[in-house]
């Protein structure tokens, strides 16, 4: 499992599929998250949502259900659904390393979301296969980048030693 390298082209391809997905399913937000908790792509309408945390928690949640699955002899659960009073979350496995998080409310229904998500999944898998062939085609501009990180932390936390 290597690093996840995304180019704009990949993001465009993913976004197009995801845009289609949320309009077709009338969902409000969709995230593609890899199982490490890194956000890959996102499309949607929900303002003020902490997508970074959402991605990390969704990945954690999915990982824990995977552990539950293994306890009962399943390899993993490919779909998770959390129902709320207004908002619902549908988490599904796209491929072995990527999950899709769909947020929707009562303006649509689970069946539709499931169906559309399934349709999108096949297309996403194709794109993700291509993304995995990506390589980091750039080097860091400076070998002292690590030092920059250290300095930057100093800048952010000026008074801490």
């Amino acid at each position, binding site marked *: 499992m290597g*690093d*996840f390298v*995304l*180019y*704009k*082209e990949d*993001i465009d391809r993913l*976004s*197009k599929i995801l*845009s289609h997905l949320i309009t077709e399913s*009338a969902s409000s937000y969709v995230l593609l998250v*890899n199982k*490490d*908790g*890194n*956000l890959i*792509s*996102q*499309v*949607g*309408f*929900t303002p003020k*949502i*902490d*997508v970074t945390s959402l991605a*990390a*928690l969704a990945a*954690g949640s999915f*990982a*824990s259900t*995977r*552990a539950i699955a293994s306890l009962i002899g399943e390899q993993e659960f490919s779909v998770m659904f959390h129902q709320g009073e207004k908002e619902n979350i549908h988490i599904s496995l796209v491929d072995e390393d990527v999950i899709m998080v769909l947020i929707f409310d009562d*303006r*649509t229904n689970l069946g*539709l979301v499931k169906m559309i998500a399934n349709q*999108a999944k096949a*297309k996403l898998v194709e794109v993700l296969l291509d993304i995995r062939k990506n*390589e980091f*085609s*750039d*080097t*860091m*501009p*400076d*070998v*002292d*980048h*690590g*030092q920059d*990180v*250290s*300095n*930057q*932390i100093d*800048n*952010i*936390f*000026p008074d*801490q*030693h």
Partner: protein
Amino acid sequence: MASINYATREISCKIVYYGPGLSGKTTNLQIIHRKIPDKDKSEMVSLATETDRTLFFDFLPLDLGSIKGFNTKFQLYTVPGQVYYNATRKLVLRGVDGVVFVVDSQSDKLQENLESFANLEENLREYGHSLETIPLVLQYNKRDLPNVYSVDELNKLVNKYRSPCYEAVAATGVGVFTTLKAIGKSVIDKFNAKYSGFQGTRRPMPAGGQAPAAAAPAAPPRAPQQPIIPARPVTPLAPANPFAAAPNPFASPAPNANPFATPSAPSFQTPPTSPFAAPVANPFANPAVNKPPLTFPAPGFGTPLNIPEPKGPAQGPLSGFSPPTGNPFQSAGLGNPAPPAGSTPFPSPFPGQMPGASQAPAPRPSPASNPFLGSPSEFRPFPGAPTSPTPPIPAMPAAPGLGFGNPAKPNVPVSPFLNSFANPNAKSESTFAPPAGLTPAANPFAAPAANPFAAPPSNPFGAPGPVASPFNAGQGFSPSSNPSPPSPPAPTINYGGFGSPPQAPLSQPNTEASGGFPNFSQSGFNPPQPRNPNLRPLTPPPEIGMPPQQQELPPATAPQASKPSPFSQFGAFEDNSGIVSTYEDMAKQDFKTKKLPNPTEKKKGFFGGLFNKDK
């Protein structure tokens, strides 16, 4: 593993704080979270029990900002330290880029420390990693307590890999940031080492403490995070701004100004800094303790790698998306003035001199390369708008906080998308036939004031922050040669020929009701109304009205409707994803149209209305 997003120029690394229970992992994150300046503050997520013991993990995203053109983000996690939470502990380790092992220095905790360290090794092994390849920093915590092991003892007992180690009193913040800096540097240095071997210069990484002469030149000029053994105050760094050294793309198109340009040789040939280097500061750099140098797995080491053509941003600064380094207002660091968001279009003062323009040919904007141009014909989110040049939903490449969901900024003068229509070269072919009576000026969907899709309120590909203006993107494809057409006054909306507005299966989002939350209205259709009198509704210039004879109608795949529907003349639409939908098709699927009967329709039949409680 790290995630590298070229679209947003982001690198995201995962750092896990590991250690026995109650050693202070969560406290480390809490201190960091507390000290983050308010402007950069992000929420810390803590999945803890009622007694504040970590149950699953704590999570703190830390955005370091742009470093050499890459927005570097650390995702800090902690694990639950208690022994019986190993299942969840293992889950958190997935995809880790660096580990901070927090040691409880108390003498009666030694066994727990050792067990936890062994557990860390074992869990990493299950993911196919080992502490020889994952950067590790040790933090000897609770140094203020009386019954603690000395640092030397802990080094002998716990520090199996001779990793950099730091004393800390996490509860008071002592040593927390030193540790953070050390692990951050190690992770990025390893990242550098991994990706700097294009010309076969990748070198085996020395083991911790062993600093061969080859790695010595890479020693940082000032080592602010030397291991504090014995503890000593770290000299406060001068407020050096790393951005000050960043090359200004206008001042001189230095090779490094555009990382997508031909990779400059020096950056490849310089030996990478070893994550374990810290040679001058490492107390273990004792020649007596000679361990064989550890090597990082080096895929492609020794063989010249094909440097793949950078796909997206290499299209040049004029190709619709400007990488941050190509955009003077995004790349030049904090020192450069940035136009306020939503200001008037700011044509690039140097349209032909953008960095990278010499290396990468700057093509005319083409529909395929322009995110605002190419998409409409390929994807139409709203089938109810057949003639409207509705761009797709602006996709946000993984960049949280871009105000995509925000309502359109009131003073956005013209949509960059509409702007593109003034350019005859950039004409997008549409598969739609406009309905006979629906002229472009009368198209209700052309008024982007209430249409969050027509006028992306912020640059979806730009960096978050003060430059989130659509004109940053606009610069990309039509800097100066393509001035924005003046917007006609607000159109009178009629629905040309239709007695009633067509019921779109998914009606236009109504942003009024929910304060920016585009609301797929249940009432079928809401003609977009300018919700702010200051908003100028935009209509496309007359020349974009596409003559019907140019349109191709793909065959409709929907089953034949028994009676003609107003949607039938809209034809079908197809996006590149292969799904062909007709409006009839979608209207039939649409639950909303089924749910909501026409309120004016009268019940028929003898008992009609008798049992209707509404009456």
